[in-house]
């Protein structure tokens, strides 16, 4: 029996953490993630988990302590966002390089300056190349479900990599919505007991961690990370999703295809804004326009072949990015273009930057983009490849 509750996204992920009961959790408060760790600290204070929480003095130390704890040999979780994730940046690479299955909730927040506490995806996109598996979530339910699955993916013997789960700060993190929680025993059974590989605390078999590796072997270490991300993670994500569907009844893939089957035009959009955009896709469908939407879930590794298959037959696609690579295209746009490029026949693709620093993504924004796609589909002509939308005059 599922428990149906009305909770915030932060509460939902805190509840997943409670059910999983990690051995160690090291975290630092930052808006809008703070509520998540407050809730979890309350679980610890009231004996609902026996997790040892380390309330560190910075996010850099949070990730450092997670690395120490995971190397020691146990299950480790943390949460952060925005500037906190940026401060962790150095250590993100250490966590993946040391192949530590740490799970981190990222309650997406913009980066300074100017300082802003609201949602965009600059934080997680900045971590794109750090070797972490990235799962993105439209709403609290997906954030909860992804968090539970992230432990299984990260800890899978074929993977052994850290994983982060994104949800939009405030928009999802602080909004109360309906959510179905799985029973504690189901979650515990699903995630299972954690078996560390080569724990540092195995005092009788001493090992050194974090060696100096120079020109003779470094390249091979990185190749090993590439190989697992490139060839192993996708299958594990799908396998875990299939098992998760059995216990939850909720289906997950590498991305969500929304009304894409016969679509001619489509939006590609991450996280909460996909919900708004789907409504607008529906209204276009009602008018007879063959519109669809693709919402990436697994962003790292990026499922290039599958995305190419899903979008290859369309006439025009708009990729909406809630982050910019200044002087370049948005990060999701470049991935979608890379996916489509090998195809002989491919859709026209445009890039819209929206919603930075929590600027609302409104139905009329999606409408305008879809109308532009209709025109591109008819004429085959793209006038502007990259453009900001929702900019105030």
């Amino acid at each position, binding site marked *: 029996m599922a428990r149906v509750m009305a909770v915030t996204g932060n509460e939902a992920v805190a509840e997943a953490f409670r059910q999983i009961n990690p051995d160690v959790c090291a975290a630092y408060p930052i808006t809008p993630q703070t509520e998540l760790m407050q809730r979890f600290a309350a679980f610890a204070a009231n004996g609902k988990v026996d997790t040892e929480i380390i309330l560190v003095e910075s996010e850099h*130390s949070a990730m450092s302590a997670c690395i120490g704890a995971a190397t020691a040999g146990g299950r480790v979780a943390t949460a952060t966002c925005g500037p906190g994730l940026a401060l962790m940046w150095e250590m993100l690479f250490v966590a993946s390089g040391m192949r530590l299955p740490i799970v981190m909730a990222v309650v997406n927040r913009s980066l300074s300056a100017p300082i802003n506490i609201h949602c965009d995806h600059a934080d997680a996109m900045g971590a794109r190349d750090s070797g972490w598996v990235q799962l993105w979530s439209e709403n609290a339910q997906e954030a909860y479900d992804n968090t539970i699955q992230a432990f299984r993916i990260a800890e899978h013997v074929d993977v052994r990599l850290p994983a982060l789960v994104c949800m939009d700060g405030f928009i999802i993190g602080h909004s109360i919505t309906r959510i179905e929680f799985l029973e504690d025993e189901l979650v515990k059974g699903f995630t299972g007991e954690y078996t560390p590989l080569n724990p540092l605390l195995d005092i009788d078999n001493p090992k050194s961690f974090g060696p*100096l590796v120079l020109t003779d072997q470094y390249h091979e270490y990185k190749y090993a990370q590439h190989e697992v991300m490139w060839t192993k993670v996708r299958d594990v994500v799908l396998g875990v999703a299939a098992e998760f569907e059995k216990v939850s009844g909720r289906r997950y893939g590498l991305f969500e295809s929304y009304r894409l089957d016969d679509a001619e035009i489509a939006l590609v959009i991450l996280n909460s804004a996909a919900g708004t955009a789907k409504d607008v896709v529906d209204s276009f469908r009602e008018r007879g326009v063959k519109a669809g939407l693709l919402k990436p879930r697994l962003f790292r590794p990026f499922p290039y072949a599958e995305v190419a298959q899903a979008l290859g037959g369309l006439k025009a696609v708009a990729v909406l990015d809630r982050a910019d690579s200044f002087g370049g295209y948005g990060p999701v746009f470049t991935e979608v273009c890379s996916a489509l490029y090998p195809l002989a026949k491919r859709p026209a693709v445009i890039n819209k930057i929206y919603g930075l620093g929590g600027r609302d993504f409104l139905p009329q924004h999606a409408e305008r983009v879809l109308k532009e796609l209709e025109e591109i589909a008819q004429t085959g002509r793209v006038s502007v490849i990259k453009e900001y939308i929702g900019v105030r005059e």
Partner: protein
Amino acid sequence: MAAELQLKELAQRKVLLAPGHRLCAGCGAPIVAKMVLLAASDYPVVAASPTGCLEVSTCISDYTAWEIPWIHSAFENAAATLAGVETMYRALKKKGKIDKEIKFIAIAGDGGTYDIGIQSLSGAMERGHDLLYVCYDNGAYMNTGIQRSGATPLGADTTTSPAGSVIPGKTQRRKDLTKIMAAHNITYTAQASPSHWSDLLKKVSKAVSMKGPKFINVITPCHRGWRARVEDTILLARLAVQTCYWPLYEVENGITRVTYKPREKKPIEEFLKLQGRFKHLFAPENEWIIKQFQEDIDREWERLLKEESLYA
């Protein structure tokens, strides 16, 4: 309380930092590391080091000199990393997955401790992790090629505070990290020197037997950076103590005790003159720096004795 140290017995114990590491001949760091591990070897020990000379020279893949579990993750975070290890140990012990009593020791240089790592260290100490943090203080960023650090003494010639025709080396005093750590009101804080090995071993042995956060600062001559003779490592450490540049003392549960008082305090020139990094201070126009150096030492030594007398 720690057992009495017997040299004969200690000599029988296994050295936990194996030979074959690539630290310089005459380097103080492995001497200090070996002494620390020897004094702690009543217990199983897990060690951590930040990036630095000791780290890059003791674990070059596929080799390691560490006979005990050891972790390095980055430069500024040995304390946070080891705090994570120690916390996982407590978590697993609570769950009955580990039964051994394990001790946790960080061994870190002054760059990773005084400067870039001070936040991580301060946080770990404030949170009360049950670990010992040992700083081997050689007074500069030696691993990157002798750049000035917060631990570099006044007047020292380093590659980023070169003694030039206008600026006579480092123009600032070193920070007193031991005092800063004592101000955290942790279980145990001490200063030690490999020249006074018995004092050092006793301090480490006492520290590991105590619960909570402990910090020991150990002067560790670096002949490359100090521009000194390879064979003078221990002599220089001794002179640092005898001139009271590096007083040997401890602060145990808030009570200060000076553990070694030189019968005759040597003038600081005795320490400075053996080191090329201070050579320029002996030029007439820089004599004021030596004078200031001596005044600083005298004032701090008097302050320390006064502090000790408060608890006598």
